[in-house]
């Protein structure tokens, strides 16, 4: 399948408008899912299901949203921040995400900011390429 980034973005926007009940113009590449678009935990699953359908791909949830497995491991999280090990784990699990900015102050409360519309587009593109 050959879809360019614009086309993928367009479809991802459609998925998010439906899943989160937001307006078209709210869904920009830099919008954060939780902060800007008000996504809650069940919405992540809804988004995964809808993406699978829209693009005909299979998405293990921990691949797109690996935060939960990190959060519950004391080796990875200490005092509300990701440890070095945790950070390395995050980077290896989220190759489709730029974590440079987050790594400067890896506070768990900021982890949500990594989940942006653009990050989903990157993820879908990598999946489509692999398919």
């Amino acid at each position: 399948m050959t879809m360019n980034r614009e086309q993928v973005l367009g479809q991802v926007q459609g998925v998010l408008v439906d899943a989160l009940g937001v307006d078209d113009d709210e869904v920009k590449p830099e919008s954060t899912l939780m902060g800007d678009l008000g996504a809650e935990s069940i919405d992540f699953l809804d988004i995964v299901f809808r993406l699978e359908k829209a693009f005909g791909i299979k998405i293990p949830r921990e691949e797109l949203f690996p935060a939960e497995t990190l959060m519950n491991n004391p080796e990875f999280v200490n005092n509300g921040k990701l440890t070095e090990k945790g950070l390395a784990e995050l980077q290896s699990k989220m190759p489709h995400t730029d974590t440079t900015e987050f790594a400067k102050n890896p506070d768990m409360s900021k982890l949500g900011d990594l989940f942006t519309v653009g990050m989903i587009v990157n993820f879908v593109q990598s999946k489509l390429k692999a398919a």
Partner: protein
Amino acid sequence: MRWIWIDKFIEFKTGVSAVAVKNVTLAEEHLHDHFPGYPVMPESLCIEAMAQTAGILVGEAKNFEEKVILAKIKKAVFHDCIRPGDSLRLSAKIESIADEAASTTGTITCGDKLIAEIDLMFSHIDQNLAGKEFPEDNFVFTDMFKSLLQGSVLKAGNG
């Protein structure tokens, strides 16, 4: 009052789809207050009836081992009112199912008339909310719901 808003299943395809019926009657007390002189089935209860139809379908797909909780109403569009004497047909389909959750689509019809379209998401709560503990017992699928399924599905046949 028993909190069951469907009367029986007439079709059941494991992991795929189910059809339940619900006969609305003036003997249901809430209809006398909703509304006095103009009884209509509350739309919230239509959603509950669909949640029971689709929820049992989702639960049965994993042999009732998961605690299946209604997590999100993705869509609820109503085209008409439901009145006493109406025989409703609730059709639910599993759209996606994973370890953690399932999403379903559904319609409520009365005769040929489309009354409502209701799409839902269910969470398997033991697989989510990691770290939180829930009772061992499956408090969702009580004997009440299971007996509803057994009685009617055996008759309807499991396709």
